[in-house]
């Protein structure tokens, strides 16, 4: 009886143990399942399996840690600035370059502080906010003025032109890459300056050469004076080039000061320009056609605007095939989209369209750059023999000057190809419309 009780107890105890073992095995299987491949093998005891699993996971963790460390070091070493902020715009991490660019020397790794506490840049803060709201990468360029509490250092420290690329990250964090564009701009500026200095230096000897050539011209007999005439033409071209460059530099450096604003009737201005340069079109039988507003006045510098239309119409003439028309279209538009200030309510839009071959698509972004020439062959082909070269054309500066004058007037200029004629289409928008015909007011 006693024995039977003992055996029964043993059996019950064993049963319990077995049940627990099964439970444990099931539990371990369940634990191992999400860990991946090894748990699938049948027959292996589960506990060693678990131990192995754990060591692999540990190894993986270490590897990941290591690669994370490597990436962090790489980022720290990167030539671009990088910083990362959390959803409250607190700076989580930034690399060495970002610290240099934004003067973030007060920040230490591991510290979490508001970005604005460390660098008071409204633009940067806004850009980050925008990226988070729209959840889209953004690019923006702005001038960063480092703010300093030392008035003497303030005079020495120069503002930086920065470009930022932002990227929305998980958990509403934002990553920002910063590029210092200042060295590039400085270089550009220096190049333009040295070129202007050179132009200044060239002007005097060129004038002398021209005078000498003029003197020679009167003293030489017919077969020889051909050479001097040719010389004169080339010297004139050089003088024009130098002159245009100096003018361009002047407009660019003090854009607001040189404008002599008055009320200008655009329609009659264009008409007078056309009269002046019409002789150039004799061989081509070109005509001009106006559409849109008849009489409209804007506040502008008359002589500068004259130059704008000379340059533009001259270009049109050069590229137009014979017996075609240059279309000029003027209309008054509302300007909410193009000028931010609420002072201007109306703007004048002028479209100049020719029927030439137009701009090559690859050239379009560059046509307003100095000395930019599209297809060179095309450029010379349309220049008939014996045609005199006017002030600007051929220098490669014509459109650059036009753009600078329009910008100085607070307007914008675009170059396109017209879908109908296939020719070049220059669109100008100018603010400061003073008056137009009463009929236009009601339309």
């Amino acid at each position, binding site marked *: 009886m006693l024995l039977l009780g003992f055996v029964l107890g043993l059996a019950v105890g064993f049963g319990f143990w077995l049940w627990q073992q099964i439970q444990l095995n099931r539990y371990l299987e369940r634990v191992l399942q999400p860990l991946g491949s090894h748990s699938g093998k049948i027959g292996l005891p589960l506990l060693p399996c678990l131990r192995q699993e754990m060591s692999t996971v540990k190894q993986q963790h270490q590897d990941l840690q290591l690669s994370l460390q490597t990436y962090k070091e790489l980022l720290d070493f990167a030539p671009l600035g990088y910083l990362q902020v959390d959803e409250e*715009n607190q700076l989580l991490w930034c690399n060495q370059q970002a610290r240099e660019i934004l003067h973030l020397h007060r920040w230490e790794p591991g510290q979490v502080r*508001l970005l*604005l506490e460390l660098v*008071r840049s409204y633009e940067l803060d806004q850009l980050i906010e925008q990226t988070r709201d729209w959840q889209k990468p953004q690019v923006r360029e702005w001038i960063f003025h480092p*703010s*300093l*509490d030392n008035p003497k250092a303030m005079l020495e420290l120069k503002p930086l032109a920065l470009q930022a690329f932002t990227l929305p990250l998980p958990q509403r964090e934002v990553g920002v890459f910063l590029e210092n564009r200042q060295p590039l701009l400085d270089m550009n500026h220096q190049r333009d300056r040295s070129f202007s200095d050179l132009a200044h230096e060239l002007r005097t000897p060129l004038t002398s050469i021209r005078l000498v050539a003029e003197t020679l011209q009167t003293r030489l007999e017919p077969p020889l004076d051909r050479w001097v005439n040719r010389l004169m033409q080339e010297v004139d071209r050089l003088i024009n080039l130098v002159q245009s460059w100096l003018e361009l530099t002047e407009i660019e450096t003090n854009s*607001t000061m040189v404008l002599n604003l008055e009320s200008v009737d655009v329609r009659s201005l264009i008409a007078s320009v056309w009269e002046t340069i019409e002789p150039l079109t004799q061989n081509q039988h070109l005509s001009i056609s106006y559409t849109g507003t008849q009489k409209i006045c804007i506040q502008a510098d008359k002589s500068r605007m004259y130059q704008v239309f000379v340059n533009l119409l001259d270009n049109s003439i050069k590229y137009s095939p014979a017996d075609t028309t240059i279309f000029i279209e003027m209309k008054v538009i509302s300007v909410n989209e193009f000028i931010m200030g609420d002072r201007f309510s109306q703007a004048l839009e002028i479209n100049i369209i020719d029927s030439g071959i137009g701009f090559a698509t690859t050239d379009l972004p560059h046509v307003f750059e100095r000395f930019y020439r599209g297809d060179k062959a095309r450029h010379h082909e349309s220049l008939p023999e014996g045609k005199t070269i006017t002030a600007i054309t051929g220098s490669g500066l014509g459109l650059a000057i036009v753009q600078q004058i329009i910008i100085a007037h607070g307007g914008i200029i675009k170059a396109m190809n017209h879908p109908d004629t296939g020719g070049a289409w220059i669109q100008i928008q100018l603010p400061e419309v003073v008056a137009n015909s009463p009929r236009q007011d009601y339309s």
Partner: protein
Amino acid sequence: MKAVINNTNPENTPPTRAIKRLERDVLRMGALVEQSFRLSHQALFARDLTAAEELPRLDKKIDRFYRQIESDCTSIITLQAPTAQDLRCLSAFMQLVRDLERIGDYAKDLAEIAIKIFPYPPHASLPEIALMSNNAQAMLATSLLALADLDEINGRRLKYLDDDVDHAYNQLYHTLAHQKDVPGVIEPILLLTLAIRCLERMADHATNIGQRVAYIVTGQR
């Protein structure tokens, strides 16, 4: 703000979080005010009229921040029962944004002066005024820095910086007011006198901001 975080438990309780947001807005407004001060400086001393034209737009933005921060402060005080330290912070913010807003207004005034003075040839004491403006700008930067770091010592230091600006004001006033045999109209001199007055007031408001920061930290005025 370190002190605010240290004072309450590490988890972001609602009022602390709200105050953090508020601080962000105050600093944002500070950055805007700094920018408008810089623009007015450019307009006045570099004769950059495009900078002057941009200022009214900035001023509107600053005003919007001012109103928003003030109403946020009141709603936190009434709805979230802040602690003594938080309350001190909030009341200081309310005063401080007023100072910032005033500086923004003076920057706008300076831009208007810049437009009016533009046709006249530059006055001989202009470099000295530019230096005064630089000093005032540095004071604004110091006050905002003190606010960001909650740095009491920097906040108190502003009082001594203000003495420099006051001194420059007195001296410039003397030079401008005691000019004799002025050729032509006196408008440029009048405008410059107004300008130095603006700068002096801006420096005063920056000093106030420093005082308020010290008040947030220590609770003593």
